[in-house]
């Protein structure tokens, strides 16, 4: 059946296709050039992590590594040994905080967004207006009142202080609402007629349809939380509660530090690996194409 659809579209568009081939080639070349340019610093970062010291401080500077070495990673783990806490503790903290934040954010924002977009209960319009307005307030100043509230709840220097404030992300609600709103009401009605509870409708109808949205939200929240420097800086006190970005600053050791330059490059590389891995995993959910690629092109 799919093949039939494909041949059908092929005959419809067949006339134009041959002419387009040249344009398509140019298009691919341009896109590849742009992709290469965009990825350049990332490639450079990977190369830096594996450069031996003499290549890191070479003049003229060299983009690609010539004699790759693992010494920087070794230095990183050794230098972490001289710190108060083993490097693995930072990794654990970062993973725990990031994974819980992502899960709770996606669930709480999706639930609320579904209620706002599809139920239109009294007050939900107001809530949305408030949420969007809060989005536009510079977050730096609100950190002080927020700190006072978190402090009076007795949560400073706990994992909750790092996870909880991120949950009510206006950004997350806004994103989910924008994707859930256009979903056809008829489908939800049909599920209701079939006797499905709201809870089931949410998990078995709304969430599967909004998959590109929550996959996107997962990626965005993961990256923001994983790379967040400001929140742990404010809400943690003890060394055992710190996350990777804070540890990274310690490893960099401020401007002019030469000794750990290689180690810092290795740390940068290690910090980037999980986000890229997650992106590659989730990417399929953002860009699911198989279903109708035959019809579309």
């Amino acid at each position: 059946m799919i093949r039939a659809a494909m041949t059908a579209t092929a005959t419809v568009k067949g006339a134009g296709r041959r002419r387009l081939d040249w344009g398509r080639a140019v298009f691919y070349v341009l896109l590849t050039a742009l992709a290469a340019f965009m990825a350049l610093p990332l490639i450079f970062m990977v190369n830096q992590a594996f450069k031996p010291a003499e290549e890191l401080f070479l003049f003229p500077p060299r983009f690609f590594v010539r004699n790759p070495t693992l010494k920087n990673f070794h230095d990183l783990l050794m230098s972490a040994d001289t710190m108060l806490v083993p490097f693995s503790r930072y990794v654990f903290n970062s993973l725990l905080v990031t994974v819980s934040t992502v899960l709770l954010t996606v669930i709480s924002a999706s639930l609320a967004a579904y209620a706002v977009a599809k139920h239109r209960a009294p007050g939900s319009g107001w809530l949305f207006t408030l949420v969007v307005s809060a989005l536009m307030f510079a977050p730096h100043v609100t950190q002080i009142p927020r700190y006072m509230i978190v402090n009076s709840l007795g949560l400073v220097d706990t994992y909750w202080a790092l996870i909880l404030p991120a949950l009510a992300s206006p950004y997350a609600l806004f994103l989910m609402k924008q994707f859930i709103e256009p979903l056809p009401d008829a489908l939800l009605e049909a599920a209701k007629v079939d006797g499905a509870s709201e809870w089931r409708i949410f998990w078995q109808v709304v969430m599967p349809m909004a998959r590109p949205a929550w996959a996107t939200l997962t990626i965005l929240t993961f990256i923001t939380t994983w790379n967040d420097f400001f929140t742990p800086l404010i809400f943690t006190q003890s060394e055992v509660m710190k996350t990777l970005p804070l540890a990274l600053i310690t490893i960099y050791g401020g401007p002019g530090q030469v000794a750990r330059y290689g180690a810092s490059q290795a740390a940068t590389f290690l910090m980037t690996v999980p986000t890229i891995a997650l992106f590659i995993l989730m990417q399929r959910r953002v860009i699911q194409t198989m279903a109708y690629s035959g019809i579309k092109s």
Partner: protein
Amino acid sequence: MGQVRGGLAVGARPWVAPLQELARLRAQVRRHRVAYFFMAPFVAVFFLLTLAPVLVATYLSFTYFNLLQPPTWIGWSNYRALLLDDDIFLIGVRNTLFFAFIYGPVSFMASFTLAWLINQLRRLRAFYTLAMYAPSIVSSIAISVIWLYFLAGDRYGLINYLLMRVGILEEPFLWLRDPRTTMPSIVVVALWMSLGNQFLVFLAGLQNVDPQLYEAAAIDGVRNRLQELWYVTIPVMKPQFLFASVNAVVASFSVFDIAVALAGLPSHLYAGHTIVTHLYDYAFIRFEMGYAAAIAVILFLLTFATGRLAFRLFSTGGAY
């Protein structure tokens, strides 16, 4: 609802109408109790940890508050000082506007164009997506180390090195210290970094477009890709456009991380000074929280006004 209004117009007993209204509201609340249950976790945290801090910060903007002593009410003087006496703030406003007017529209349009182009691809779609999205994945602290190397003002800087080798430059140029190139450099790096978020939202939005719409459009006489884009894709993607544009507005007015990472705080001749760096300076270096809060409120008004524009452009006429 119409019937209730009708009852109100008769108005025989004036206290009946409000009571009816109240009963109606109660019935509605009860009917939607599942919805409230769904909203509860988000709303609880939102009110406690987002909305309350915003309100407290707004109150603080009318006070003198140094974190040690309790805030003292001083009325409008923070705002007066900010708008009339603080020249550096005005430099920050100018720089922020420069940044916002280039960064906002360019990143918005570039993200959409790229997402649209990549969505047309049949092969290697995942590869191109990763390549385009890669810059947003990396921590801005981590990546600024690399950009600082690219833009370094001595002959070791990669850009200086290349330009000198080709012969465009005679001697190293101080990209991040010369007032003429500081903000443009920040714009370029920012653009490179944050094509990502909106790009991803647009990609997801393009996936949400019902393919049957394209078939219907083809029957209705839509001939080429550009017509498809104009008559089908763009109207259907309004919710994503609204999200991305509000997002772009907020991001472009609150430029901070990159500006500080590249140009320093304070930057040379305040060439890289923005509203949020000014805010950060007063909040976390001088500990004048009241003044910093006033800066945040002005920034909010600026962002909100621009955000309304985005709503007017892309709103689907929903709840907002």
